[in-house]
């Protein structure tokens, strides 16, 4: 194998690829990346056996071939090489090493045979559709904060994606919950997506999908099967196994009889929570909301760390009430709101509270109150 790649292009591909590789990996082959030279491009693949990343980058290939190299080390080397250089690779089949040359620098890295690298599984997908990157990005960015980290309830360690039928037609929905809060984000379903199975996409894949869809101008090709999901742009393909288990019936959790409506400037709300919660105790992080006519006083009273209070102008015309929340949960939600206003729908201090963005119902958040 013999080829050369522009350093900038290679570096960008390597830093994305390297994110998949587990840093504390005990299995040597999994800390390697698969490096395959095709006609006029190079395919870089990394995997942690759950999530599989493939990127194709242009290269000047003199001799085709395939091998594996330590991902982190290669990425470190390329990062430190001078800008604007061309990196050339030359595999020596005799001693199984890869010679890397750029400008006046020379390196030689150990390789493992590509046959040991996990196979890219051939999967039959039951739905294939394409979706614009910003829309896909929104689905996952706005829901991912609510994913659980609890190992015992593994089916909550991800975002559930499925097609739901609403009054306005089919929607593509992403839901995440950890039992204390829930985020539900939806968008009009692409026509080809109607038959897709309900899947739970694991945490690590969710973060990578967000990263993949950050570019505004691209379209992402999505393929879904019961066991595997794939998200692909023109150069990058992400394939992930789905989470085993059944996602709980979340519709029961979303309240529909919350009538007390409170509107607040989302940015101010988020900043105020952040400020007051500075003194909240690490363990409970409780914040008390005293809501009155057009005013809300947020207060934290933690005996060991201090007292914090802030008043905020809101639009509220119902009966006065006092309700408590975990400041962290409330802050996470408030930070998700892009619209100017956050609409908080309250019931009693013991019932779940519903929050959405302005009058937009396509992203809703539910948070359980705390006794304060």
């Amino acid at each position, binding site marked *: 194998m013999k080829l050369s790649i522009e350093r900038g292009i290679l570096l960008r591909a390597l830093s994305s690829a390297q994110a998949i590789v587990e840093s504390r990996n005990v299995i040597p082959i999994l800390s390697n990346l698969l490096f395959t030279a095709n006609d006029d491009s190079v395919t870089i693949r990394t995997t942690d056996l759950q999530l599989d990343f493939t990127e194709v980058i242009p290269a000047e290939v003199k001799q085709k071939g395939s091998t594996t190299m330590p991902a982190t080390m290669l990425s470190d080397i390329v990062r430190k090489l001078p800008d604007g250089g061309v990196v050339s690779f030359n595999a020596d089949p005799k001693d199984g090493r890869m010679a890397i040359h750029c400008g006046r620098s020379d390196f030689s890295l150990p390789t493992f045979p590509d046959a040991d690298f996990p196979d890219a*599984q051939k999967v039959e997908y039951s739905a294939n559709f394409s979706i614009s990157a910003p829309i896909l990005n929104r689905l996952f960015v706005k829901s991912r904060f609510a994913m659980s980290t609890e190992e015992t309830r593994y089916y909550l360690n991800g975002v559930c994606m499925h097609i739901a039928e609403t009054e306005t037609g089919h929607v593509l929905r992403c839901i995440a919950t950890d039992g204390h809060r829930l985020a539900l984000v939806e968008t009009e379903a692409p026509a080809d997506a109607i038959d897709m199975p309900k899947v739970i996409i694991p945490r690590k894949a969710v973060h990578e999908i967000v990263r993949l869809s950050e570019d505004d101008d691209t379209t992402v090709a999505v393929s879904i099967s019961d066991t595997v999901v794939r998200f692909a742009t023109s150069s990058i393909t992400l394939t992930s*196994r789905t989470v085993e288990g059944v996602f709980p019936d979340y519709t029961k959790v979303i309240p529909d009889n919350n009538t007390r409506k409170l509107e607040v400037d989302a940015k101010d709300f988020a900043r105020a929570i952040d400020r007051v919660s500075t003194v909240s105790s690490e363990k409970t992080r409780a914040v008390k909301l005293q809501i009155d006519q057009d005013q809300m006083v947020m207060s934290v009273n933690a005996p060991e760390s201090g007292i914090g209070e802030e008043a905020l102008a809101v639009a509220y015309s119902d009966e006065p009430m006092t309700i408590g929340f975990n400041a962290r949960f409330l802050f996470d939600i408030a930070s998700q709101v892009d619209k100017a206003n956050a609409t908080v729908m309250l019931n009693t201090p013991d019932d779940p509270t519903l929050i959405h963005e302005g009058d937009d119902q396509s992203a809703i958040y539910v948070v359980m109150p705390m006794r304060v």
Partner: protein
Amino acid sequence: MLISSDGSPSPDCVPGAPHPCATRSLVGQRGAEATFLKSIVNGRLHHGWLMTGPKGIGKATLAYQISGFLLGSSIEGIADAAATAFESRTLASDPEHPVARRIMAGSEANFKLVTRTLTATGRLSDVIRADDVRSLHTFFGLKSQDRRYRVVIIDAADDMNVQAANALLKVLEEPPSNAVILLIAHQPFRLLPTIRSRCRLLRLLPLEPSDMARALVQTGVDPIEDTTAQILVELSSGSVGTAFRMLNAGGVELYKKIIELIASFPQFNRQLALDLVNTVTEKKSGDQLVLFFDVLDIALSRLARRGALGGALPSAASQEPDTLARLSPDPQAARHWADAAAQVNALSRTGLEVNIDPSALILDTIFRLAQTSKKIEALRLK
């Protein structure tokens, strides 16, 4: 690779011998192979298998072959594959098969090995910890992407501490779909009874002399004569792993030296004792000392056996039968030797733990044994 390529310690492998996942064929365990295959053919593949038998007789090798077999075909096709394998009477698959290669490299998504891992300080842990077992939550938490079995090997289940065993119990009680968990246990009675009761037992037997010779050749040893094989079977109680150590690390020679020394009992032959000390300590590696105590343990248990059962044991060294007969003539003597073996065992364990000077430890041990021999002699004369 699972076979540590970077020199890091691999807890589940006899030093110098090929790793069980790289062993091409399993010798002398047709019965166990047939039992397992039959369970698939009958459509009763249990999710938990407890593979028992002495150390080094091929439990891990069989476990890897079962893994390769289960992962090599789809869930729907497994019954047919098992029927074919049952007819050809072997589970062994081609080691160059992609699945086998991936299992060996640790890159098979549907396979997981749970074994002792390195601690935060970089030392190999003495036990399998709860966190090691809990990694199975992540493993079973994701769907198998191509609808195959998901296979876990626990090597060795005896290494699990109580917390780890309880964590495993949870998995065994509510097995995930299409999961097969293979527990390798050298001493199954040390496991929690609740774990034992949830697993199907797969008993592997010690090897016959002819199988031993074949198995040793496979591990890369030069072909050996039948008599040597016989000796090795005697000394290793049919365990290839032990036999390999005996052969490779000079265990057979050591055994001969020990017999030579105890032949001089009840006298304490200073010259022979010092000679033995030199042999053990000249390589300056702790392994030799461990080997010495293992071999000595074999010698003492043979002494006890000779006394308790009477009759001659198959000879493992020249002048051995006479020596054994003279030193351990009756069951009473056998009891003394058994006690001595237990004492030596405790002594060596403490000695190795606190790092006593090996020469002193060996001499002290030999001296105690000479004393035991004197005691027996005195009783006999009375």
